[in-house]
């Protein structure tokens, strides 16, 4: 059980930075905050990327990921390791994002995208106007996708997850994942036509 073995560093950091997720999750479930802090550091960045793409802005993304981690901490004592921690955490974050999207309108309207800014919706320094416009158009097109398609596309193209991992996160077959990914690509291709 638990997950794949990891090499132990010669320094043997007793804080647990060299430990596999499964072992850290067991410790965290028993109230070990340090173990949980390692998990937050290890998984926070990709989950933030995921939430930013799902929600369209960094502020909401931070809120979603913060809520997801706090929820995970509370639910860890009941976490049965039937899914890898990585997958479980992705699911919690996705659900949090979906709840937040229901609660508020999509944050990126045409107006906000067109506004010039020192940093764009992704917190990046200004790039060329055309690149920025293309990225904004992609974000807008993503926001118009069916939720399942958007999620599969983000998990594959931004997170780099394999079809198998995506199927675990979304609790669907790999075939269904491939179908959603194809439809997402086709819709995005149409939306991005003017940028070819």
């Amino acid at each position, binding site marked *: *059980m*638990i997950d794949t*073995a*990891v*090499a*132990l560093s*010669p320094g*043997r950091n*007793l804080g647990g930075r060299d*430990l*596999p997720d*499964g*072992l850290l999750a*067991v*410790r965290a479930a*028993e*109230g*070990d*905050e340090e173990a*949980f*802090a390692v998990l*937050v*550091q290890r998984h*926070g*960045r990709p989950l*933030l*990327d995921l939430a*930013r793409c799902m929600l369209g802005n960094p502020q909401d993304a*931070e809120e979603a*990921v*913060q809520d997801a*981690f*706090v929820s995970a*901490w509370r639910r860890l004592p009941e976490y049965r390791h039937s899914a890898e921690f990585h997958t479980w955490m992705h699911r919690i974050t996705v659900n949090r994002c979906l709840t937040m999207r229901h609660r508020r309108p999509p944050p990126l309207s045409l107006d906000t995208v067109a506004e010039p800014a020192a940093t764009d919706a*992704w*917190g*990046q320094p200004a790039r060329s106007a055309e*690149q920025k416009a*293309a*990225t904004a158009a*992609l*974000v807008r097109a993503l926001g118009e996708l069916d939720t399942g398609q958007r999620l599969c596309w983000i998990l594959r*193209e*931004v997170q780099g997850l*394999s*079809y*198998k991992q995506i199927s675990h996160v979304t609790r669907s077959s790999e*075939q269904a994942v*491939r*179908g959603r990914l*194809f*439809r997402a*690509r*086709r819709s*995005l*291709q149409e939306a*991005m*036509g003017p*940028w*070819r």
Partner: protein
Amino acid sequence: MAVDESHAPPPESLGADGTGPKPGAADVPSFADDVVTPCGRLLSRIWEQARDTAQAADPHISSCPHCREAAEGLSAVTAASQALRTGDRPGLEALADRVMNIVRAEVRLGRLLPLADPDRALRIAESAAAKVLRQAADRVPGARAAACRFVPVGDGVDLRVTMTLAAALDRPLPDRIHQVRRSVLRSAGQDLGLAVTAVDITVVDVLEQEPPCRPGLTPGGA
């Protein structure tokens, strides 16, 4: 919409990362709305191959003008999505701090365990005791503790520890488990003052062998 099998051999695999289709599963359109190019390839498959660039599963796709055009159709999406993957991102630190502040405020002590003190007036939180005993187990090279629970024995202050462990296999397990048990017993008595009568250890995971720079370990991989 079907495709001529002989004209459209399935790519056997798109690579070792599990993203490729299963062999034999690619002969017919996977989804009702897939599109077949004039040369008989599935648009979905062309795009998959274009995006999983490390592999050249179907050499036809890179040489055929129809397929190339179909793959290039995705180029604007690919270029724009680059910014979503590689852009500078705000730091994780502030977020991690906020999460951990909330976590630390939600104290999860667990049961209170009696210390081996004559008046039986002293107690320690199970979570705190477990943390100390896990550290004792971790001090044994090639061992890492996972779960650590306490079971009362009788009516007094005696306790039994049940611990799960990840262990390397470069040495016989019984030796290592014995060492862990000794370390845990010593720490329970000396550091905590708990009356631990037994330590039950279950190995639940295997750790890769430690790098050769640690003295006393065999160099080389597992």
